[in-house]
């Protein structure tokens, strides 16, 4: 394990007028660590994810990222050009709805290759070879490379979105309900795939989910949110096996046993 955190979050709050999005959130994310943020709809987990990933500006508080050059940078003070560059090289963002993260009218190959072209790759053959390799890694048949995601199933689209994000070897990936809206069997396959990729690539990830089984399978650590506040956090096993807060106990006891 590396000696310094990848992301340092200090007292982040976001208000929508007088309504609270999230309040006073602080934590550190370490390299290779997967953090799950759980809570019901409206608990502020997606707001927090947006603040961390610079999709929203926090009302107060600081989010610092450990850049590849070894320096910490305050994300809110970063220029837009640099921030956007960071987002499409060193970061990934997997949306719940793949249509939000994919270009639905260009081929699977171009979807995967876009980030490479954005950072200046100008060799068609190389781009295509890399895209082919990534499709294989996310278990999409090679002969679908020229098909548009419109022709893909929900699970395939989600896997394509993951490939599109990982092609530049990012160090940090944000995921917003990555298995939401998928059939259970499709979910299992996706979870296993994500789990394998996170492990093989040594990724750090922040995953927002309301599904505790997803958190159990993918995350090392968990934060439970309610009404914009982090009410409990700790090792995933600990939070799920020995929930301490009333709301967490309610969440855990509400899981359906099969």
């Amino acid at each position, binding site marked *: 394990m590396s000696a310094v955190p990848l992301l340092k979050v200090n007292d982040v709050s976001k208000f929508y007028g007088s309504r609270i999005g999230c309040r006073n959130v602080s934590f550190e994310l370490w390299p290779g660590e997967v953090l799950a943020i759980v809570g019901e709809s409206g608990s502020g987990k997606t707001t927090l994810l947006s603040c961390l990933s610079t999709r929203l500006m926090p009302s107060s508080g600081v989010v610092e990222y450990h850049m590849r050059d070894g320096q910490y940078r305050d994300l809110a003070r970063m220029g*837009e*050009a640099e921030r*956007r560059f960071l987002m499409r090289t060193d970061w990934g963002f997997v949306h719940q709805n793949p249509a939000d993260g994919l*270009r639905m*009218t*260009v*081929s699977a*190959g*171009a979807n995967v*290759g*876009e*980030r490479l*072209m*954005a*950072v200046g790759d*100008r*060799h*068609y*053959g190389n*781009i*295509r070879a890399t895209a082919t390799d990534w499709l294989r890694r996310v278990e999409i048949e090679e002969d679908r*490379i*020229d098909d548009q995601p419109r022709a893909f199933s929900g699970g395939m689209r989600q896997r394509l979105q993951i490939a599109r994000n990982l092609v530049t070897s990012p160090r940090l990936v944000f995921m917003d309900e990555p298995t939401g809206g998928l059939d259970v069997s499709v979910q299992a396959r996706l979870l296993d795939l994500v789990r394998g990729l996170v492990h093989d690539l040594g990724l750090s990830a922040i995953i927002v989910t309301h599904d505790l089984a997803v958190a159990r399978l993918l995350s090392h650590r968990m934060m439970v949110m309610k009404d914009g506040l982090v009410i409990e956090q700790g090792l995933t096993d600990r939070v799920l096996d020995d929930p301490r807060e009333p709301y967490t106990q309610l969440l855990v006891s509400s899981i359906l046993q099969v």
Partner: protein
Amino acid sequence: MTDLATYNFAYLDEQTKRMIRRAILKAISIPGYQVPFASREMPMPYGWGTGGVQVTAAILGPDDVLKVIDQGADDTTNAVSIRAFFQKVANVAVTTKTREATIIQTRHRIPEETLTAGQTLVYQVPIPEPLRFLEPRETETRKMHALEEYGLMHVKLYEDIARNGHIATTYAYPVKVEGRYVMDPSPTPKFDNPKMHMSEALQLFGAGREKRIYAVPPYTEVVSLDFEDHPFEIQHFDKPCALCGAEHVYLDEVVLDDKGGRMFVCSDTDHCEDRREHGHAGHLLAQQEAAE
């Protein structure tokens, strides 16, 4: 009352011309950058060159000589009516000869004859935004230009190669201007792209419906985008022009009968006539003469 007295010189009022000239100056200062302007209603529908007409009206002086071409031809409806328009509202001299013109308004072609210093080429542009194909949001495309994020342009070319085995974009082929802005050269065939590079003439682009003006000043670098392993290439034609025998020019296909007969002739009608006047003859013309 005469007809002419009804209009200000070149149709537009002086305030509007001033506004457009300011936009043009800004466009020249930032080659390839799309400058918004308050496009006016013109007495012709959108798509008939309202952007080009406004640019021409703003730069036209009484001493100018105007040429108007549509797909290379001086005698098509659009070219004839725009030429007639300026004759009526500005009373300027008009010509079909490329080398005699000081201002050439064009739809979809650059004349074959190399333009020279002092000449201005005004393009009619339907969709000025080269990134629009893949990114429908104007806020986003503006940001992409501002931050020089042009990966998306190559996504389009990638799609071309993936689908056709080569870059199949044949017109409106994107270029990078002076190493900075990616620009849509309007729907001219990519055959004409190299003519934009380091041209001695001033090139102005007007999009009336989209309310944008952009420019390529003289002696400006204009590079067509491509891949290392799929370099930019212009169209090649198997045969010379059937009428004037010219090679290395852009040809139009003309269907001659309903039995599959066709010929390929210069798209630039002035260039073709000029060559024929100088005694050049293509195979079709030679056959006709032989028959006579």
